[in-house]
Every structure is written in structure tokens, then in C-alpha cells.
């Protein structure tokens, strides 16, 4: 069930689009619903979004599998999205990713045992002049070094 709170949030987005164009809000609706369900989308939540927006289930499924920001398997409370594209790569991102993996004892795509952190390698996040960088949930962290990463990660609770 989509909570009242989530519905209110979705309604804010629906209001931005012309009448009968509520499906424009589907990307945000999925994010909102995902956030309420341990950051995971399931077939049933997708169906609920479809029903709420009066869309065919498969049309929502198409969106939910096309964009990268949706999760289908367990992720950590903190998702570290490490950019490995060119500018970050040139600035040593690959080594830093290895360091992070070793530090957390997980590979990219995995979640720490305590469920706190998961690491994901992602494509360019549009902060190339701050390379190397990663994003933790909504926030960007730039000009990363091993020390900086250690400090940031150690503060995650």
C-alpha cells in the first residue's frame, strides 16, 4: 500500500503536469515509493504505482527498469555511488574503489553485513572537475583521497 504521505508527495508532482498527464509523475512516484520500501521496488509496489497513476503495469515496469536509480535487490542504508568514468578514472578512482571495497569488505554491488553501506560503480555523475568523486544517498563528495574516504565512511552510522 502506498502511504498517505507518499501519495501526498506524488500528488505534488502530478500537479506539475497538464490534466490527464499524471503518468509524467511516474519516475518520482517510483522513487517516493522506493524510499518507503527499504529502497527496493517490487512487482507489487510497481503495480501500486501503476494503479495510482492509472497506467498499465508494464508501462511502469518499463520505466522502473530503464532508469538506473531504482533498486531490485537489497541496498544499504547508505548507497555509495562511485563514479568510475573518465575524469574520475584519470584521477585514480579505480584504486579508490578498491580501497573502499577492502575497507568495507564488500565488492561493488554488495551490501555490508550490517546492512549499513552498499557500493555501486556508476557512470559520470557530472562533477568531473571534482574528480574523483562519489555520491552517498543525495550528497556529492568530491576530490576524494584515501584519507577523505576513510573519514566520510567512518562517520556513516
Amino acid at each position, binding site marked *: 500500500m502506498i502511504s498517505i504521505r507518499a501519495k501526498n508527495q506524488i500528488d505534488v508532482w502530478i500537479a506539475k503536469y497538464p490534466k490527464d498527464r499524471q503518468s509524467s509523475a511516474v519516475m*518520482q512516484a517510483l522513487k517516493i515509493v522506493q524510499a518507503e520500501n527499504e529502497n527496493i521496488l517490487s512487482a507489487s509496489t510497481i503495480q501500486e504505482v501503476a494503479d495510482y497513476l492509472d497506467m498499465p503495469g508494464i508501462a511502469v515496469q518499463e520505466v522502473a527498469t530503464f532508469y538506473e536509480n531504482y533498486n531490485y535487490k537489497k541496498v544499504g542504508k547508505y548507497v555509495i555511488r562511485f563514479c568510475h568514468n573518465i575524469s574520475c578514472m*584519470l584521477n585514480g578512482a579505480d584504486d579508490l574503489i578498491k580501497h573502499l571495497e577492502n575497507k568495507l569488505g564488500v565488492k561493488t554491488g554488495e551490501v555490508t553485513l550490517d546492512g549499513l553501506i552498499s557500493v555501486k560503480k556508476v557512470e559520470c555523475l557530472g562533477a*568531473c*572537475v571534482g574528480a574523483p568523486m562519489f555520491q552517498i544517498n*543525495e550528497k556529492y563528495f568530491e576530490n576524494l583521497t584515501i584519507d577523505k574516504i576513510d573519514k566520510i565512511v567512518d562517520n556513516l552510522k
Partner: protein
Amino acid sequence: MNEVCFKNLTKDQCWSLKTYEDSGGYSVWRKILKGKFTSEQVIDELKLSGLRGRGGAGFPTGLKWSFMPRHSDGQKYVVCNSDEGEPGTCKDRDILRFNPHAVIEGMAIGGFVMNASVGYNYIRGEFMEPFKRFEGALEEAYKAGLLGQNINNSSINFDLYTHLGAGAYICGEETALLESIEGKKGQPRFKPPFPANVGLFGKPTTINNTESFASVPEILRCGGQWFADIGVENSGGCKLFSVSGHVTNPANFEVPMGISFKDLLEMAGGMRDGAKLKAVIPGGSSTPVLTAEIVMNMTMDYDGIEKAGSMLGAGSVIIMNESTCMVEVLTRLAHFYYDESCGQCTPCREGTGWLYRVLKRITDGNGRKGDIDLLLSVQNKIMGNTICALGDAAAMPVESFLRNFREEFEYYIKHRKSMVKG
């Protein structure tokens, strides 16, 4: 330097309405609301300014705006493309963070000129800080009575909304972006029809890049000629260059068009640790790579970079020093296009994966004789055969990397290791 989009960069709370208005912000919009600036004047000034689309294609903005059937009845839209994601590009993020009101004013002016009463700013899903900054600015602008219905009794209406992406590079392609706003997969549309005729929700729509919109108010305030004079022939004004990679001080620089590459590199503090320059991608990952010898005599404008054999693109200058293994860089770029292909049309869906797999095989030490010819042949089969430019964007780096650094690829295949890294 920093005369247009970054004009207030160093000021306190540079993103606030107050800072913006103190430096002349919204003066053009207010003139329009008072009926003292006509659509025709706007278009004439923009044409005079030589402003070209800052998203990468470089299409003259004034001309683009004049294409809209602005006198026809019915809803029309202006859309801002803030779906920044081309590797090497990070200027729009800073515009949204540090000068959101310029984007709002530019879009409002565009809406007025093209008779579009609604605008959407499509911000990529990861840009939560810029999104919040922009939403804050929108709230300020509404509160100040600068947006909405019958603004200041001018009978001008303009409502502006943000649409947030969810992680897909392809949505930076303008028609994919429209599909995405409509709540669909970001798959580019074929053209014609062009968005100016059939765009968002099937209505006439003009889409411009964030930097293009943000440049408009200052151009109109100071005059098209003023802007044109900043730059060089065919490349009016100044432009943001994102300089990243192996430089001492990577950053965004708003500099006059036509500045020499040498000077730009200097601004970024030169090569980090005094390393030797090896290669430059001058306009974002899709543009052909250039060698150090060529770039040293290159000027940073549309014609200058084209003369050097590449494209200005979005002004994303990626600097590589001599320790860079070009095979590995190309492999990473190939992975990017493989990962970001929308899958709609055959050559891109099938070809980007093929390119990546061959390159991956080479960097894994399993390259084969004939792989270089294979790569060239595959990229050639993608080139020009796809619906949108992503196919070409995936193909072009392969061609230019192999043309300029073929011996590194040959070495990697033969010796099963990098020529540079050993």
C-alpha cells in the same frame, strides 16, 4: 572571465534573488512585463549575439527560437535540458547551484518569445543539491511575483516546474528528454517531426541547454553586440569550459570564445606535477580525441576545435598526461555508451556492446590480431545509421583513439599488456 553565467560566482549567497537582482537580474524580464521589450527584439538581439546552443550541438539560439510557431494557437512549452551527464561535463550543475535565477529568467524570456506559458527544467536525478537550489530559487521568484499567471498585470503567463530524472544519460538527447517528462522510457524520437512542431505532450516545444538559457538575460541586458564582441567570429560570447583530468586545478571557467587552449590550460594551473600532456578530449567524451601537438595551437571556439579535428561540444575539456593508457580510457568510454544505450535501435543496441566486449577482451589480455580492424568496422557500421546521436557518439571516440594512438592498441593486443603502464 566569468562575465555571464558566473558573473556573481564570488559573491556571498550568489544564488539568492537579492544577489541576482542587485547585479541587474530580472531587469530584462521586468521590461518585457512592462511591454518594453518585444519578442522580435529578443530574437534579433540573440541572433546578433552569436549565441549557439551550449548543450553540444551549437545550433544558433536566436534562429532556433524563431522556428517556433509562436503565433499559432494552443499550448506550447519551453524546456531546459539540465540532464548533464556527458563524461567530462559539469558546468550546468554549477549554474543551477550558483546562478539559478539566470536560468529562470532565461526560460521565462524564452516562454514569452515563443508564446509558451509553461516551462519545465529537466534536472538529472542525481543532482539533488542543484535541484533543491533551483526549487528554492523558483519559490523566491514566485513569491516576488515574477512567475505565474498574469504576472504583474502584464497578461503574460509563465509557470515553471522542475522535472527530476532517474538516471539515464540518453535523456540528455532532447527528444528522449521529452519522452521522459511524459513518464516514459527515455527513448529518442525520430525526426521529423521536430519538437518545434510536435514536442512535449504533442505540442510545439523548444528545448535549450541550461547554459544557453542562463546566458540569455545578460545578453539582452548588455546587448547582442556586446556578447558577440566577447568572442570570435562564428563563436559569439563567452562559454563555460569544464577542465578536468590531469591538471593542477580542475574547474569550470567562463572564458571568451577563441581563447587559446594553452591559456585555458594555464588557468587550470597547468599539467599536474609537471607531467607531459598526451591527449585532450576537447568537448566531452563523444568528441574525437586530439593529440598534444595539435591542441597546443588550437583555439577554444567552434571553428578552432573543428579545424583541429574535433568538436567544441559542451566545452568539456578532458586532459590526459603521458601516463594515460589510451586503450583503457577508450574501454571505459565504450563501457559508458554500452551501458547508456537506450536499446531502441539496432546498430546502437547491438553495436555498443560489441565494441565494449572487443575492447574489454583486449584490456583483459585476450586481444586478437584483427581486432583493430574489427573495431573500426563495427564503429563504421554504427556511424550514421542510428535514430539519435548516441550511436555516433559511441563510434567517434573509437575511430579517433585508433587513428591517433593505434600503436598502443597494437601493443596491447600483441603483448597482452599496456604499452604505457607495462
